[in-house]
C-alpha cells in the first residue's frame, strides 16, 4: 500500500516536471523591442496607408512567406514593396536571433507572419495560399 503511494507520487511528479519543461520550451516571441526593431516598426507604420491602398487596388498582395509582392503598378509600387519587405525581414531575423532559432526557425517565423497577414487581409485583397496559389480573399 505504502509502495503504491510512493509510486503514484513519483508518477505525478514526473508528469508535472514534463509539463513544466514543455511549457517553458514554448515561449518564443519578441523578447525585447530594441531601438532598431522599433525603427523598422515605425517605418512600416509610415507606409501602412499607402500599402493598404495598393492592396485594395490589388497592385500588392501578401505572399505565403510573410512578405508583400508587387502584382502591378510599376516602379513606384516595387519601391514600396522593397522597403516594406526589408523592414519585415529585419523584424523576422531579430525574432529568430532573440530566440536562438536558426534558418529553419526563420522560415517558421515567416510562415506564421504570413498566416496572420492572410487572416488580417480584407475581402477582395490578393493573398497567396500555403500551396502557392494566389487568390482573392
Amino acid at each position, binding site marked *: 500500500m*505504502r*509502495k503504491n503511494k*510512493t*509510486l503514484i*507520487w*513519483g508518477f505525478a*511528479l*514526473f508528469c508535472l*516536471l*514534463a509539463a*513544466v*519543461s514543455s511549457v517553458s*520550451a*514554448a*515561449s*518564443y*516571441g*519578441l523578447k525585447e523591442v530594441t531601438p532598431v526593431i522599433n525603427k523598422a*516598426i*515605425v517605418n*512600416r*507604420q*509610415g*507606409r*501602412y*496607408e499607402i500599402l*493598404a491602398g495598393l492592396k485594395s487596388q490589388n497592385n500588392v498582395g501578401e505572399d505565403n512567406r510573410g512578405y508583400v509582392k508587387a502584382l502591378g503598378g510599376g516602379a513606384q509600387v516595387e519601391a514600396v514593396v522593397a522597403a516594406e519587405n526589408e523592414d519585415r525581414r529585419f*523584424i523576422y531575423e531579430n*525574432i529568430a536571433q532573440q530566440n536562438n*532559432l*536558426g534558418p*529553419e*526557425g526563420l522560415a*517558421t*517565423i515567416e510562415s*506564421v*507572419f504570413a*498566416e*496572420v*497577414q492572410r487572416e*488580417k487581409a480584407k475581402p477582395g485583397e490578393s493573398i497567396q495560399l500555403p500551396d502557392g496559389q494566389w487568390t482573392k480573399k
Partner: protein
Amino acid sequence: MKSFLKAMALILLSVSAAGCTIKTVGDPNRPITINANVVVDIRGLKQTANSIEDMVAKGGRDAEK
C-alpha cells in the same frame, strides 16, 4: 527512512527523465553527427505576429489622422 530514500530516488529519476542532457563520448577522428529536429511552437510566435501587425496598423492609421 526506507520510504524517504525511495521517494528521493523517484524524484531524482523524474528530474533526469523530464529534462535530460545528452553527452556523447567518441573518437575525435570519427565525429558523430546528430541531426536534431527543432520543433518551434508557434503559439507564442502567432501572438507576437498579431501584436506587431496590430501595432503597425494602429500606428499607421493614427499617423494619417
